[in-house]
């Protein structure tokens, strides 16, 4: 998959770019990711219907945070998912909107994300991250 998003050479990430756009807002950022039916990685989930996996929402959140902080992918590691709740599936052609508050906790970052598709909440994720060393 080609992309124009900068990626650190030592990045550890999924084989897909899980973010389309990130915009800084007061206290955090807003990100967007469209679920693409013919993305090779989604071919198997599921073979008969494209559903963006819940853990990919966490991956999208990570990549959005990386772009927000560094302007490139690959600079952040997941420490903990404090809580995650998935209430609706993100299907092919859905655009997932991430509204994310970012707080610092010492050398860690805590994100509180609300994800929505078609104006309805599909997930809430509270996670802790650290910069890669």
């Amino acid at each position, binding site marked *: 998959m080609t992309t124009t998003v900068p990626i650190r050479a030592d990045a550890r990430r999924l084989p897909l770019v899980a973010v389309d756009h990130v915009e800084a807002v007061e206290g955090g950022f807003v990100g967007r990711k469209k679920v693409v039916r013919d993305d090779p990685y989604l071919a198997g989930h599921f073979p008969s219907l494209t559903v963006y996996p819940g853990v990919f929402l966490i991956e999208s959140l990570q990549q959005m945070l990386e772009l927000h902080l560094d302007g490139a992918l690959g600079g952040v590691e997941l420490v903990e*998912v404090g809580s995650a709740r*998935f209430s609706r599936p993100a299907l092919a052609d859905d655009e997932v909107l991430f509204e994310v508050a970012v707080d610092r906790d010492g050398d860690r970052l805590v994100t509180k994300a609300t994800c929505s598709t078609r104006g309805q909440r599909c997930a809430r994720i509270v996670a802790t991250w650290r910069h890669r060393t």
Partner: protein
Amino acid sequence: MSQTHPDPGDLLPYGYPALHVDRIARHTPGAMEAVKAVTYHELDSHLGTARPGRFPATLTLESFLQACGLLVLQESEEADGQLLIFGSARGVRVLGAAGAGELLVHSVELVDRDEETATFTGVSRASGDGRIVLEVERAITLIRPAGSLGDPESAA
């Protein structure tokens, strides 16, 4: 290699490259050990030139959740036509990563089960030195008919 448990590919509805469990190693009522092999063959598509190759945290969690799904499906009388959908989780702690050449070994335990939900706890270890790479305090999966996936009220 003798095969005393069902093949994960026969129980889980995922196709390539979304299936992240290779083998059920042990199953007792309410508990399962399931294994994924981590290789550069797969990691290179994830990592490009990054070395050493380590399995990404989000896919480690996905693999753990698939092991949970295998446990419920293995113990269901009507596994055909059922899907396990990731509903919620808390206390998921990433303590490390399995590297190329290691096995990712999930030990999952069924904490509670009713008709529509199943609650799990467990850990994932890297086989090289047995270190814990993932701890999951609670993960809840929703049990749904396969045909409900297109229903927007279903979870992810």
